[in-house]
């Protein structure tokens, strides 16, 4: 029982990161029907920029560890959002009216560009966030010790997702985003500036990915130029699991994927963990081809 609970917390912690990255995939897909393959690499970029900022401002030890973490997340989010904006302007906007496959190839190219650029700038070796920034206290729940940072990471990720949900559904700009997702042409006729709405989505998605990157760096310590691939793949899977184009779906899909992985590893086989997760994905897609929450196809985002 204790082990089950421990495994559930393990799965939820990883799942929250998947969900945070999945939001970027799902928002862009909902908006442009484009899978932004470069998103995983923007996540990596966020992790690296966090490390650079930490060194540049010599934040370590100057203030409380949590404040350092928060500051890094905010700064890195800002910078990566800017990169995301430029990515859309340079790699996707010129191709918006061309064949959909062309944009996908451009996305793949951008992904290769980013991961190699990171490798050239920072080197191929793993980089490491200095240890001891974050408190290592653990809190006991039902006889299971859970590191405080895991809980905070989980809460942080959920808070960011809820903020996004609120923004999309309760604000005027959010309505504009939803309108563009449903029908670009009609949105334009209603006086919505489609280009700036799309730019906004490319600010938000990569920003959230960067937040995930810094969290991973701070908590796990090791970052590598190619880590965006495995996280990106899992997050993309999560987005499909929940119903791609659907924001609550991405959150649900991420958390679910994390938990399935942890429980699969715990009770079936570690080596088959990914196979189990993907089997569940395929089963769900057989019975619900649009994903778990994907029924509101007409009302993307």
């Amino acid at each position, binding site marked *: 029982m204790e082990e089950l609970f421990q495994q559930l917390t393990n799965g939820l912690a990883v799942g929250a990161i998947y969900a945070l990255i999945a939001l970027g995939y799902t928002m862009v897909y909902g908006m442009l029907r484009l899978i932004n393959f470069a998103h995983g690499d923007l996540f990596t970029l966020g992790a690296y920029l966090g490390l650079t900022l930490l060194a540049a401002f010599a934040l370590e030890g100057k203030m409380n560890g949590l404040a350092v973490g928060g500051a890094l997340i905010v700064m890195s989010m800002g910078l990566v959002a800017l990169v995301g904006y430029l990515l859309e302007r340079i790699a996707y906007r010129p191709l918006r009216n061309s064949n959909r496959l062309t944009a996908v190839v451009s996305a793949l190219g951008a992904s290769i560009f980013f991961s190699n650029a990171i490798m050239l700038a920072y080197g191929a070796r*793993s980089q*490491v966030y200095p240890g001891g920034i974050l408190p290592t206290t653990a809190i006991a729940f039902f006889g299971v010790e859970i*590191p405080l940072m895991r809980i905070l990471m989980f809460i942080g990720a959920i808070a960011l997702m809820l903020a996004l949900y609120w923004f999309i559904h309760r604000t005027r700009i959010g309505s504009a985003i939803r309108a563009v997702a449903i029908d670009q042409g009609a949105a334009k006729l209603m006086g919505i500036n489609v280009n700036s709405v799309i730019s906004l989505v490319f600010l938000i998605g990569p920003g959230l990915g960067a937040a995930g990157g810094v969290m991973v760096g701070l908590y796990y310590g090791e970052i590598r130029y*190619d*880590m965006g691939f495995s996280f990106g793949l899992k997050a993309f899977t999560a987005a499909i699991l929940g119903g791609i184009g659907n924001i609550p779906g991405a959150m649900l899909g991420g958390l679910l994927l994390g938990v399935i992985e942890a429980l699969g590893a715990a009770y079936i086989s*570690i080596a088959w*963990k990914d196979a189990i997760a993907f089997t569940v994905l395929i089963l769900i897609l057989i019975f619900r081809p649009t994903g778990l929450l994907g029924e509101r196809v007409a009302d993307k985002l």
Partner: protein
Amino acid sequence: MKHLKIGITAIILMLSLTAAAFAGTVRIGLMAPITGAFASEGQDMRKILELMAEELNKAGGINGIQVELVVEDDGSTPRSAATAASRLVAAGVPAVIGTYGSAVTQGSQDIYDEAGIVQIATGSTAIRLTATGKKRFFRTCPRDDEQGRVAAETLRKQGFKKIAILHDNSAYAKGLADEAKQHIGKDAAVIFFDALTPGERDYSAILTKIKGAAPDVILFTGYYPEAGLLLRQMSGMKWSVPMVGGDATNNTDLVKIAGTEAAKGYRFISPPMPSDIDSPMAKIFLVAYTAKYGDMPNSIWSVMAADAFNVLVAAIKARGADSAAIADYLHTSLKDMYCLTGKISFDEKGDRIGDLYRLYEVDEQGKFVLQPR
């Protein structure tokens, strides 16, 4: 199509003419993972060989002939390795050093073999590579079965009874895990045997499961990034069980990833580092390396590349830059040459002879300390 063929022939002709124009130099190929999953190893190999060639040329080269290094990137995949191998064949090198991954080496073996070029692998420890009877294939690294035997013996000597073995499903790690399991014998039991997925960050689900099995020791046969993360997350769980690793964890980055506190007490078996080799060549090398790069080499595998270079230079010095002569020299005349990783001789299959493995432990400063045998 015809034009293409003519074009390619012309290019090949031009290339061979340029090769002829450089008759005053000996070209030695390096095929290494400059990009891809093993990029850090490959870039270290390039660094170390550039230094070796530079030092050699400063000292007058081989019998007065300058050495030129031709580097090709194998991209850490067998497919790019085949391309890299073809390019090195076209460049007309008599011998190639490389590469790191066993599967990657395998992807290039036939190409070198057909071209009659000597290949000396630096980190490819899979048994099968020397089982096909290639006459001009060698390696400066030991074989997996040897390491599996030493790993099992190490665990037995330290009196561990309940052993958990964790690999990462790569051909190397799985092979080592299987070998070790076979050699563990009757007085100890393998109570857990499974694989993690390399490249992930969170291994807490796996550690929770292993903790449930309550082993005396974990034998991890994978690579250093995962080993570092495992140690770090074990310490985060406040779980302290000894962990022993294989030679793929012999990289100082392990301590950076795990943190000195969590890495303390971690043990691994590996061929010895140059700093633990008592030979004049190793001492001179370390001085030159630290002077140029300001640090010690991170990993043993780049030093294996350096030793491949050393034996090649010895062969060319004795017999000239001809592939057949080099291969013959390495097989028959090279005996116990004292290099950076100890004595080197090759058997008829091209495998390195001699027992090479030592036990290392991480001390409280995060240094790798050679344990007395």
